[in-house]
C-alpha cells in the first residue's frame, strides 16, 4: 500500500458548456466525486444532465472528458426529442470537433432503472461496460436521473424500513464512488425536493450546507431522501425557480410608462462542496440549452 502523490493527483472537471456556470463551479463537474443536483420538477435538472452528457465528449483541451456517458433514467419517458434539439446546437457550436457523419447522441448510452435493486444490478454490469468502452470512446460520465424516484415508494415510514433504506444509500454510494475512483468518472445524480410544512419540521428542518433554507416557487423545501443520503454525496447544488414581478420601463406613444411584468427567475446555488465557496448565479433555459446569466 503506497500513498498517492498529491502533486500527480489532478482533479479533472467536465465543463457544463457555459463559462459562467463553469466559473461558479471552478471548472465544472469534478471527476472521482459524486455531485448531486437538487431541485423541484421543471427546474432544469434533466437539462443540465443532457447538456453535460454532450459536453463530456469535447476534448480535454476544451474542458470535456473526451468520453461517452452512461445515462440512467428512472422517470419516463426519456427526453429524446430535447436531446436531439440540444445535440443540433451543440454540433453547430462545436463543428470543428465533430466530422459530418458523427452524431454525438451515439455516445450517450441510455438505460432505464426501475428500482434500487435494479440499480445495484446495473452497477455490477457497469464495470465490464466501462472496461470495454476503453477500446472506442471511454465512458467517463455517469448520470442518474433521478435517484429519488427509486426510493420514494418502496419503503414504509417505519424506523426499520428507513434503516434498511439508509444502508442501501451507503451501498449504492460506495459502489458509485469505487467506480468513480477506478475509472476516474464524474458522477452526476439528481434528486427531488420535499415540502416543509408547518412549524414542526422535524428532521427535515435540519440545516445542511450553506443555505439556511431552500426556497423554490415561493415554498420552503428540503432535498428528498434525508440526512443519510446527504452524507453519501460529495457536493450538492440547488436549482431554484421563482416568479418575480419586475417593474419595466417602457417607451409608449403617450410618454413613458412602467409595466409590471412576471419574470421567471432561476438560480443555481452551491449548498455544499469541498472545493467551492458559498455562491450562486442566475441562469436561463433556452432552446440551445442552459446558460448562466451575468447581471
Amino acid at each position: 500500500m503506497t500513498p498517492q502523490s498529491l502533486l500527480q493527483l489532478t482533479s479533472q472537471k467536465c465543463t457544463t458548456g457555459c463559462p459562467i456556470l463553469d466559473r461558479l463551479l471552478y471548472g465544472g463537474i469534478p471527476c472521482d466525486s459524486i455531485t448531486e443536483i437538487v431541485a423541484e420538477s421543471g427546474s432544469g435538472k434533466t437539462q443540465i444532465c443532457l447538456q453535460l452528457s454532450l459536453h463530456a465528449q469535447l476534448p480535454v483541451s476544451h474542458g470535456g472528458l473526451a468520453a461517452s456517458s452512461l445515462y440512467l433514467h428512472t422517470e419516463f419517458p426519456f427526453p429524446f426529442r430535447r436531446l436531439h434539439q440540444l445535440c443540433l446546437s451543440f454540433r453547430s457550436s462545436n463543428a470543428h470537433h465533430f466530422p459530418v457523419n458523427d452524431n454525438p447522441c451515439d455516445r450517450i448510452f441510455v438505460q432505464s432503472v426501475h428500482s434500487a435493486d435494479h440499480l445495484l444490478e446495473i452497477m455490477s454490469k457497469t464495470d465490464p461496460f466501462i472496461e470495454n468502452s476503453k477500446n472506442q470512446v471511454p465512458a467517463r460520465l455517469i448520470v442518474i436521473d433521478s435517484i429519488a424516484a427509486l426510493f420514494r415508494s418502496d419503503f414504509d415510514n417505519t424506523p426499520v424500513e428507513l434503516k434498511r433504506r439508509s444502508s442501501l444509500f451507503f451501498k449504492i454510494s460506495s459502489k458509485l464512488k469505487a467506480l468513480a475512483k477506478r475509472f476516474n468518472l464524474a458522477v452526476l445524480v439528481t434528486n427531488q425536493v420535499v415540502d416543509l410544512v408547518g412549524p414542526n419540521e422535524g428532521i427535515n428542518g435540519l440545516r445542511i450546507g450553506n443555505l439556511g433554507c431552500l426556497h423554490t416557487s415561493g415554498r420552503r423545501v428540503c432535498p428528498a431522501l434525508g440526512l443519510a443520503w446527504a452524507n453519501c454525496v460529495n457536493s450538492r447544488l440547488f436549482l431554484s425557480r421563482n416568479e418575480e414581478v419586475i417593474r419595466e420601463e417602457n417607451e409608449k406613444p403617450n410618454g413613458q410608462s412602467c409595466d409590471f411584468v412576471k419574470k421567471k427567475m432561476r438560480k443555481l446555488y452551491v449548498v455544499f462542496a469541498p472545493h467551492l465557496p458559498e455562491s450562486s448565479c442566475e441562469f436561463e433555459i433556452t432552446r440551445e440549452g442552459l446558460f448562466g446569466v451575468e447581471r
Partner: protein
Amino acid sequence: MEIWRLPISASQRGKLISAGYTSLSSLSSISSSDLARELKVSESEAMNILKVASHSRGSETSNASCSIVEGAQSAWDMLHDEESLMHITTSSADLDNILGGGIHCKEVTEIGGVPGIGKTQLGIQVAVNVQIPNDFGGLGGKAIYIDTEGSFMVERAFQIAEACIEDMSEYNRFLRKDFQECKIKMLPQDILENIFYFRICSYTEQIALINYLDKFLSEHKDVKVIVVDSVTFHFRQDFDDMALRTRVLSGMALKLMNLAKRFSLAVVLLNQVTTKHTEASFQLALALGDSWSHTCTNRIVLYWNGNERYAYIDKSPSLRSASAAYSVTARGIRNSSSSCKRIKMM
C-alpha cells in the same frame, strides 16, 4: 530521602525540597531550564545539580526507575510529558482556545457534524498545520490523510497550504524584522508532498491500511497526525452481523490509540451524523453507535447556530465543555467574523 545524600550546597538542597523534589527519580525527567525556573537559580547551577543527581543515580545498585511494572510511568513523569507535548493549531484562535491549544498529540480526537459543516476542511487544515516548522510554534511534522469518501480536493489543499505560508510570512515580517535569514522557503508544493494520501474504497481496505500503518510509521517517524475522513462511511452499509461490526470497529479504535501513544502523534477521526429515533421524536447523534462513542479520547461536535458554524467539546478528559464559533474561508478554517466572539462556557 536520597536528596540528603547529594553532594550539593545546603541552600540548593533546601530549594530542591521546598520545590517538591524529594527523591532522585523526580529529577530524572526534568530539563535544566525547567529546574532553573522552578528553583529560581541560574541554568548552570541547575545543570550542575542534575549532573550530580544522575551521577549518583548511576552508581546506585538499585534500578533507576522505581516502577513496579515494566514500562509504567509515575503520574509526575506523565504530567511533564503532557506539558511538553505540542498541539496542532486549527488556525482559529477561538477553536484553539477551547481545545487547550489545539489538537492534542498522543490522543484520538473524533470530530463529527452534518454534511457541509466543514469536517473535511478541518481535516485538511490540520494536515497542513502540522507541517508548520518549530520556529513558528508548530510540530514540523508530516501528515497521513486517509480518504474514504473522495472528498479531498487537491486544489483546495493547495489553496489552504498557500494561505498558511502567507500567514507565516506575515508573522515573520511583523515579529522578526531583523532575522532576514528566517525567510520562508516552503512552497505549497512542499506542503502537499508531505501529506501521505491514501484513498480507501471498502471497509476491508480501511482495516488493512490501519494495520499497515504500524510498519509505515516506523519507516516515516516524522508523521505527526493521522486524519481519517471519514471513519464511518464504509461501516454504514448492510452488515449482516452487527456484532462483527462492533468488534471490527473497536479493534480499529484500539490500534489507532496504540499508534497515537507509541509514535506520539495525533489521530483525528471525522464522523458523520445520524438520527436516533427515541419514542416519538428524533435526536441527532454521531454515527457508529454507542460502543464506538466510548473509544475516542476527545469528541468535538460541529453544528450550525443560525448562520454560524460552531464547535462544541462533547467529551474530553481534560477540557471543559465549551463551544466556539469558527468559519470556513477561502484561506481555510479561521475565526468567525461576527462581532460577538464570546466563548460560551457550559
